[in-house]
């Protein structure tokens, strides 16, 4: 599983199964200095191991995107990073401490997660839903402080949903609803945000809209973002750091321009393709070979 894709450019050494310590990509900081990293974790459900001995570090201030084919373990890795899934071996470290040793509410003040499936209770308004993101900051006596109010306002404004605040979540379009869920996670005011396939049920325009929002959050507001995405071209365009996974192992990681090559895509997705520069951004654009349909 340690196939090393031979890339045309200077490749960042892919971390192997054993976990080379050299996967801190470009910074010259000491290895493992990032706020969130996983050290040799083995994760899975019940007895089924999905990924073994993973070493991952999320560069501070990056927009990290995890890509890979279905069932490659990318969502599982994200769940482990968010401590929703406890690794059977190894540990996830947040700010120098094992994440499982930090009280759950304290973790939730530093690290937010937008899960794949969330349920909006029937009849809930947008502002009410976003306000629930404040739970980690609230106590039995302090249930609605001025900070809570300011955070909810800020989250609504940042996601462009201020005008929707009074509306019922049930009435919104898919794109609006996803922005509202992002607003709820933002109201949590965590420096690190994890997003599990945030664009999955959106049409193309809303996908781009959401990714632009994520990029803004990363660039302008300094959030460290980690997202699982299906669309490789979206990942190439918006990620500052890319992690490619296959069969529960990390095949390549680094800046998209450095790691995305035809060989890598063929290796990871089994898709023959060409890589051309994106005419808009210059980032790698994956064009599948397929068979020409017209003569």
């Amino acid at each position: 599983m340690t196939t090393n894709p031979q890339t045309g450019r200077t490749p960042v050494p892919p971390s192997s199964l054993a976990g080379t310590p050299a996967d801190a990509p470009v910074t010259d900081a000491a290895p493992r200095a990032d706020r969130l990293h996983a050290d040799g974790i083995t994760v899975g459900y019940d007895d089924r191991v999905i990924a073994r001995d993973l070493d991952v570090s999320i560069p501070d201030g990056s927009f990290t995107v995890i890509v890979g084919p279905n069932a490659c373990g990318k969502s599982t890795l994200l769940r482990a990073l968010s401590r929703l899934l406890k690794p059977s071996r190894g540990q996830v470290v947040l700010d120098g401490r094992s994440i499982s040793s930090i009280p759950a509410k304290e973790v939730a003040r530093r690290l937010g997660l937008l899960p794949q499936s969330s349920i909006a209770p029937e009849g809930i308004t947008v502002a009410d839903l976003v306000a629930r993101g404040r739970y980690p900051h609230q106590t039995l006596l302090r249930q609605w402080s001025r900070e809570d109010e300011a955070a909810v306002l800020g989250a609504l404004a940042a996601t462009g949903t201020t005008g929707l605040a009074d509306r019922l979540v049930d009435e919104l379009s898919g794109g609006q609803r996803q922005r509202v869920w992002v607003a709820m996670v933002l109201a949590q005011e965590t420096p690190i945000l994890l997003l599990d396939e945030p664009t999955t049920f959106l049409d193309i325009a809303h996908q781009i809209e959401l990714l632009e929002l994520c990029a803004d959050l990363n660039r302008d507001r300094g959030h460290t973002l980690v997202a699982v995405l299906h669309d490789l071209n979206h990942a190439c365009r918006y990620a500052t750091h890319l992690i490619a996974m296959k069969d529960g192992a990390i095949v390549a990681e680094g800046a998209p321009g450095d790691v995305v090559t035809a060989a890598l895509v063929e290796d990871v997705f089994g898709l023959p393709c060409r890589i051309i520069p994106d005419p808009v951004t210059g980032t790698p654009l994956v064009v599948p070979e397929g068979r020409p349909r017209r003569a």
Partner: protein
Amino acid sequence: MSAPVRDQVPTSPGVPDDGGHRRGFGRPTRVVRAFGGRVSLRLDVRTLAVCAALALVGLALGVVALTTGDYPLSVPQVLDALVGAADGPVRLVVVEWRLPRALLALVLGAALGTSGAIFQSITRNPLGSPDVIGFSTGAYTGALVVILVVGGGYAGVAAGALVGGVLTAAAVYLLAYRRGVQGFRLVVVGIAVSAMLASVNQWLVVTADLETAMAAAVWGAGSLHGATWAQAAPASVLAVLLVLPLAWLAPRMGLLELGDDAAAALGLRTERVRLALVVVGVALTALATAAAGPIAFVALAAPQLARRLTGAPGVRLLPAAVMGAVLLAASDLVAQRAFAPTQLPVGVVTVSLGGFYLVWLLVREARK
């Protein structure tokens, strides 16, 4: 549905308009802050108003229960009796006969309504109420075993109901457990367990001798008839004790409704909170069943009726509790007075009402 005024400039959750009301939650909201911000609360005005109105209705039903009957009394007479200034017979009728029954109806109704809200929230399903998912049936089984084997006695039957309800809940919880408990699985497993226990109950009654079977059937109908302080006092104290942890659990219950992942991501220990909620919910149902026998429908209907009145998202505990109290108090009045002097078991009244409600609910769910 009276929608709040929408034609104003959309202000945000933080901005108070005149009078301290805040808009931006889509509903009138009042924020209370005290002690330099160390204490703060966000209150939903309509929910509070509905709860207050229902509490008044409950109180009025209590007054009706205390003043009417074979021996009609005026309100001043009842008040005299309550403060201990009445003479023998009035005191006896009010304090010893009517008050424990009226109090028990309100308290057990509130307990059932709360328990229903807990399970409907956990299962995210309006059918996920303790009387549907087998806890009441299990409590009946426990009581039956005591009646048939030991031969009854109030404390024994109550203990049997308690043990039966708790064991059934544990069985349903464990059978539905697979990497955590999911709502729909809990409902389906509960209905299956409930069906099995119902046939066990049937078998127990059929094989018993006639007199015992009659006693069992009377208990099984669920009645507040002949309730005394021996039941009302401990039941009320226990209900209050059981409700205390809900102050801590209620906001967490609202988060669980967002889904396990979202709740866990917000820092909730989901399984632990759910288990705590289940324990309190089962205890409240078992308490009501032990005191009065299985009373159906209140736990099922109260949370949903309250939700319709408040228009609040999800099921909430306090409105469900006061609605439950009103439902059971009203049902018990019907049971006492509708065919007087014949006394109906209150369980019969709630089951008849519940039949209509359940049909309506199923039709509505099926159309979704």
